[in-house]
């Protein structure tokens, strides 16, 4: 009974297989098929127009508006005067904010990718308990970050729940409002690892069990199966979700504002503070800060996509 099933699984999974030979065979055909009939491309463009135009228009107008405000061309009072003060005047602070945001985003992404991968492994390996863990992970996702950050604050702050119940030693690091943004990274890692796990499970669940069974039949240990089967199989999904987590945590505001220290400020917190400033002259600086955040996000996406494409090409 068992034998034909395990025997047939690798064949079923074959189209998803990342084996180099099949990929190389497929690639030229795929590109040829996509490039050849021009009508299909045009039709595709026409079909995409209703979705793309509003998005492009909204983003375009807001970016152009923000740029104009940052250059002093859309003042609330007085005549528009072209000025780069908002950019040049605070370049040092702006650079520091970018570094802080990048640090938070890198740390959160690394933590959530590792934890998310482990969760996905556990869910795929242990069907019954795994379903409970998968359910818990899925339930984490709709919780808004603001609520999550508030809860983390109540849990981890100096006289928070943990301290009251466990009586943490004085040497325990201050996470909420601490200079290393510990609580902020913890919040992102908690929420985003669930997201990473869900993406991984969704992308691998069909192919992974068959391949792992095959590898096990051939004598691979559990560790070898993780390294040589699950990890390569999960790489595309892992890379895409890591990119999403990075860009999201780079620009996210609530947790950094609620759980971070007064100074240094991440880009998002700085942008919102300046935007809400009672000094109308701070508005151009706020817009410059927001645009820097947007620019950093775009650079990260382009770099990530280029890296993914190159690693695919190498294989």
């Amino acid at each position: 009974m068992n034998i034909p099933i395990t025997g047939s699984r690798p064949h079923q999974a074959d189209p998803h297989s990342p084996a180099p030979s099949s990929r190389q065979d497929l690639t030229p055909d795929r590109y040829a098929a996509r490039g050849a009939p021009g009508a299909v491309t045009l039709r595709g463009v026409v079909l995409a127009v209703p979705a793309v135009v509003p998005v492009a228009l909204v983003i375009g107008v807001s970016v152009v508006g923000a740029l104009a405000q940052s250059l002093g061309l859309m003042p609330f009072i007085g005549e528009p005067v072209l000025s780069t003060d908002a950019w040049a005047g605070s370049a040092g602070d702006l650079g520091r904010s970018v570094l802080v945001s990048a640090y938070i985003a890198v740390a959160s992404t690394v933590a959530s990718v590792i934890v998310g991968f482990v969760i996905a492994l556990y869910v795929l390996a242990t069907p019954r308990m795994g379903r409970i863990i998968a359910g818990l992970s899925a339930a984490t996702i709709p919780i808004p970050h603001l609520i999550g950050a508030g809860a983390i604050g109540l849990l981890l702050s100096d006289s928070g729940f943990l301290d009251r119940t466990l009586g943490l030693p004085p040497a325990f690091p201050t996470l909420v409002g601490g200079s290393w943004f510990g609580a902020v990274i913890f919040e992102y890692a908690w929420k985003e690892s669930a997201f990473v796990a869900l993406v991984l499970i969704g992308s691998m669940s069909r192919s992974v069990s068959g391949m792992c069974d095959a590898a096990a039949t051939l004598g691979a240990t559990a560790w070898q199966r993780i390294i040589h089967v699950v990890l390569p199989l999960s790489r595309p999904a892992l890379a895409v979700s890591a990119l999403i987590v990075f860009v999201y945590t780079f620009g996210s505001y609530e947790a950094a504002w609620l759980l971070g220290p007064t100074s240094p400020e991440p880009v998002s917190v700085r942008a919102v503070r300046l935007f809400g400033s009672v000094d109308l002259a701070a508005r151009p600086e706020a817009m410059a800060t927001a645009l820097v955040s947007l620019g950093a996000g775009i650079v990260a996406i382009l770099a990530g996509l280029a890296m993914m494409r190159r690693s695919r090409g190498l294989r």
Partner: protein
Amino acid sequence: MTAAVTAVAGLALSSCAAPSPETPSAFASFDDVRAEADGQTVDLWMYGGDEQGNAYVDDVLAPAAAAEGVTLRRVPITDTADAVNRVLSERQAGRSDGSVDLVWVNGANFSTGRQAEAWRCDWTGLLPNMDLTDPEDPLLLNDFGTPVDGCEAPWHKAQFTFFYNSATVNDPPTTLEGILQWAKDHPGRFTYPAPPDFTGSVFLREVMLAAAGGAEAVPLDFSDEAFDEHSPAALDALTGVAPSLWREGATYPRDEQALNTLFADGEVDIAMTYGPATLTDLVASGALPDTTKVLTLEEGTVGNASFLAIPANAADPAGAMVVANLALSPEQQAAKADPDTWGQFPVLDLGRLDPEDETLFDQLPASPVVPTYDELSRKAHGELSAEWVPALDEAWRQEIAASR
């Protein structure tokens, strides 16, 4: 593609110039206002973090407005600047039927709106109940140094107040300098909210006045010379005390609520508020310990008034005026002054009331925590002009928050 970019750029740039202040149609008399207000829905945007304030508006003010034919809808916001921003953005977009009809505002937010000509002006003279206020009251004539000019109707008075936990502080300081010295003597037991939080910002200005030797020493009007003369002493004083603050001054509570939480958790022993009215309820509900006591300073503290303003592009200005007038009525001011309701100090001149209305105020129960307004506001001084606020906040951020 190029066409699209040009179109987008054109769209954005067409709204480039500052919006020209349109003159909203004026009303000849309050009867005209009443006639037009009938059936209108007024959106009152106000700070939503004060539950007593929310309950007062929903349960007391809104039903009274309904009796005058106006539906009052409370829009809770986390910061008054959000409402001002909304008005400015809507005006920039050319909307004349703005979604904000009435804002609880004062100080820097009011002055920001005035700079951008975002408020409707010269309307408070129409309100019959304005006659019950003292026309010479300095707190009602100038809002943080910005002339009110009928652009906002008074609502409450407030007094900046320190409070302490009498269970842990045996001999409370009696001056602001004393508070800073107390902080140095008791490391880790004092802090203040990080400016630009409203309360932290007030504390910063109070420290500057104390360091200058009193409120009279600093000119109310902002000038670069005055700033250069008086701000270094304040920043020095705060830099000196920083290592003795909570968390060695490495970080500061985000806002007044965060400071209250530290106070309630016993992490600090002295805290501060610009809304002493809320203390009664906070103590009664257990949010603050019942050993909380108000700390009055020998040199007095700063006082202000807060107002209701109507944006120039409000969709229902007549309804908003009816609500502003109602909020000034003796019944509403007395109900609002009851510590069990909200405890906000009235703006009316009690001498101008009918004897009947005056008894409304005489019958108010005393708060077990907060002294009377007369006692709190003894030797009070007015607010500096609004330009001081962002200048000092920024200096604090550069010199104290960033260098630790």
